[in-house]
């Protein structure tokens, strides 16, 4: 069997991965180089900020030496790349933890939040879109029109604060929206990093309810803000297909409406996949306001604090993780594309 036929015999998703994966290495290196340089172009000297009252020329020099800031930028970069190859991203200046430890703790926090938010967003957005197209002119259609208009305009932190105010403070029907788990409940041992999953794996029911309850408001906030865009996109794509000739033909042939809707939905998946992929990658860093309001201790908060404090190792670590995550998401999107529409060649 020659190489070409072996290649062709591979399933398509595998072929895409085989082509795309090696590309990630130069991409990551580029990201690393650019962030390293850009971070150092930022104004602000971490040594000065850290020392405050105890700054003397000697302590500044000692601290700069400890942080490696006294060397040339290329020496710093080479040392940095060397460390990364050993899995060492440096120590954050403002949490005193190795950056890898911080990221391992914070990435699951954000991923848990945005995964549930995306699931709910897709559920709500697609359902509303389908319903409003199917019953065009109905109550849901009118409602989604209003919501679609508003969703683009309402900021997430505002929604979050309103939800806290009404549901927690006034009505008192949701658990305290601060942090991922109740202060008096011990977090489950880390397996996946998702508290809801880990607590179930550990069989810890109180931890599960506590963490699930605390997910409710932030997930709802992100969903309310993001489902609007997804709904509008799906609605456009779906209504075009739903009114196209082949659907009319299906209907004329007497296919059940449910089959027709399913077929039409499948045909309008491509733009939905694009948007979901984009939103997922985007939320990793952009959920920062929601994270701050709900004291989530996630990645976005970490990144913003790193920028404010000129915490170079933390910032670089975040960008690396974000870049890797986005590259993976886009890879998955490409694969899903092909599965959804075999005509597309990625």
């Amino acid at each position, binding site marked *: 069997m020659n190489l070409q036929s072996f290649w062709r015999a591979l399933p398509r998703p595998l072929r895409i991965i085989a082509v795309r994966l090696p590309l990630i290495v130069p991409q990551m290196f580029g990201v690393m180089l650019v962030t390293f340089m850009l971070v150092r172009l930022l104004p602000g000297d971490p040594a000065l900020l850290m020392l405050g009252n105890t700054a003397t020329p000697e302590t500044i020099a000692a601290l700069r030496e400890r942080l490696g800031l006294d060397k040339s930028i290329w020496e710093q970069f080479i040392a940095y790349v060397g460390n990364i190859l050993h899995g060492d991203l440096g120590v954050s200046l*403002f949490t005193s933890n190795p950056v890898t430890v911080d990221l391992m703790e914070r990435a699951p926090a954000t991923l848990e939040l945005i995964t549930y938010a995306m699931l709910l967003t897709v559920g709500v957005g697609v359902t509303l879109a389908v319903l409003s197209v199917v019953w065009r002119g109905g109550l849901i259609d009118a409602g989604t029109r209003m919501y679609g208009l508003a969703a683009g305009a309402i900021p997430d932190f505002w929604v979050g604060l309103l939800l806290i105010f009404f549901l927690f*403070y006034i009505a008192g029907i949701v658990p305290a*929206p601060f942090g991922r788990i109740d202060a008096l409940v011990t977090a489950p041992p880390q397996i996946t990093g998702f508290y809801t999953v880990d607590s179930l794996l550990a069989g810890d029911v109180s931890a599960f309810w506590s963490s699930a309850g605390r997910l409710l408001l932030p997930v709802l906030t992100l969903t309310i803000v993001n489902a609007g865009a997804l709904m509008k996109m799906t609605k456009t794509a779906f209504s075009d297909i739903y009114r196209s000739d082949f659907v009319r033909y299906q209907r004329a042939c007497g296919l059940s409406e449910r089959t027709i809707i399913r077929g039409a939905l499948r045909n309008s998946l491509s733009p939905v996949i694009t948007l979901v992929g984009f939103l997922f990658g985007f939320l990793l860093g952009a959920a920062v306001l929601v994270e701050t309001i709900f004291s989530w201790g996630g990645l976005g908060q970490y990144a913003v604090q790193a920028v404010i404090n000129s915490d170079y190792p933390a910032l670089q670590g975040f960008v690396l993780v974000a870049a890797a995550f986005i590259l993976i998401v886009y890879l998955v999107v490409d694969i899903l594309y092909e599965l959804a529409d075999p005509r597309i060649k990625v």
Partner: protein
Amino acid sequence: MKLFSPMMYEARSLRERGWSASLLSGLMLTTALAFAPPAQAQDAKTILVVAGPRTPESLDQEYPPTEAVHELRRNVYERLLTYAPKVGDDGVTYEDFGKIAGALAEKWEVSPDKKEITFFLRKGVKSAAGNELNADAVMWSFERGWNLKSNFHWYMTQILKIPAFEGAFTKIDDYTVKVSIPNPSPLLDRLWINSDLGILDAVEVKKHVTSDDPWAQRWLATNSASFGPYQVAKYSPGQEVVYEANPSYYRGAPKLKRVIFREMPTSANRVAALQAGSVDVAEYLLPRELALLEKSPAVRVHKVFGNYIHRVEMNNTTAPFTDERVRKALNHLVPRDDILKAVYFNTARPTKSPISEIYPGFTDQYFTYNTDIEKAKSLLAEAGFPNGFKTELGYRTGDQLEEEMAVILKSAFAKAGVDVTLSKLPASTLVERYTKGTIPMYFFRDMAIVPDAAYVANLWLNSASLINYSRFKSEEVDGLINGALTSTDEPKRLEDMKRVQKIMVEAAPWVFLANPGYQLATKPNVKGYSWYTPNGNAWFDFSKE
């Protein structure tokens, strides 16, 4: 028409199913939440939950001091000496700056020439890990501090002027340690009260020493080991710190067995959490929120006028602030009453001296800057700016109070033609700009934790001080400060510091604003509020009813 009827049918059923399904799942969700088990209540009186803006950046004493770090040190690290407690008229426990007491050192002796201090350690003191305090622990703490060239080293070289470790720090016997300094210092005993100078549990720390980390910096950054009332049981920066009581603390086991500090960056959320009863204590709230909380019976607000000084510093070496008249004019333009009312909701007082108002030696008798636009205009005209000038004022991103004050100051200064551009800058950028002297005006809020006028003046007004960012320079002030740092004649020191305050206030290197005080909001059943100069809460003093 016939064509569409199946669809209508199908659609209706879908609608019905959709509604009932969503209703059902919604119902399930709410019932599930309502029946979620409540937090355990049995430990309610020994567990304190605190909400603060930020967890400490490091647990190591040699990390530069920040507000969050000060509080941690107060609770975890025990020092050699302390001030005797004194209950104020407001029921708050303060420090009696005139009366030093023993802490880890049961007794101490200062030589008559004030060049030597001998500490006699308390016997039987146990750390949280169970190791006993002895001279070796003290000596190792000193050695570590000296070699890491950070906080300890700064106090020893900059304040006590110690030139080398050898000869300065000596172990006399297992429970006696002596510190010798080259020149007399009036701070020789008081300095050891500082929360940055805690004694480490050397036995515990040494277990974590490695060949490339001889002072266990990596371990101490995220772990604690000392003789204080608490140890850190869990440190997850950005989320929470859990303090566990040290049962063998030398003043007795703390009443609160566990203190959980949760990071909640948004102050509105700290308020909501306190009002809803999810936390017992909320730190660093905004004056507006405190004014609102004071009316609530479910919350108690403690207010003290501590040692913070909030001001706008002008770069005295940048034109037009090189001219004393310009600096005075701006001081005359500040509507202090408006700021206290509109921004601080009367939690603050005007600040009238570079020395904190609660410290010995403070005087406000030289302060004459009332709001007087005409006077400001004539001062500006004398200085050659009858139509004002353009300048820039920097403040920190995310600091709401400074932003509000900046807007008030902009319109106040505009009344004399001074056109201020407001620059909102990230902390690191702002710090870099005022350190390098490239921003003409910036907000500055700071406190000096040693209650000594000469120490404070030395930090902010000595032209040799690196944090004299306003670059105020007066040879007489420098001379008086340097004299007071080595003189042991207390009445003369206080007299000299009065003179320093007179010169400084008249030269007006800063725009004087306010003493913002320190406030803490708690549930009514939280008792024992106390205040210390680093503004960090000492949970040992607290209890719950």
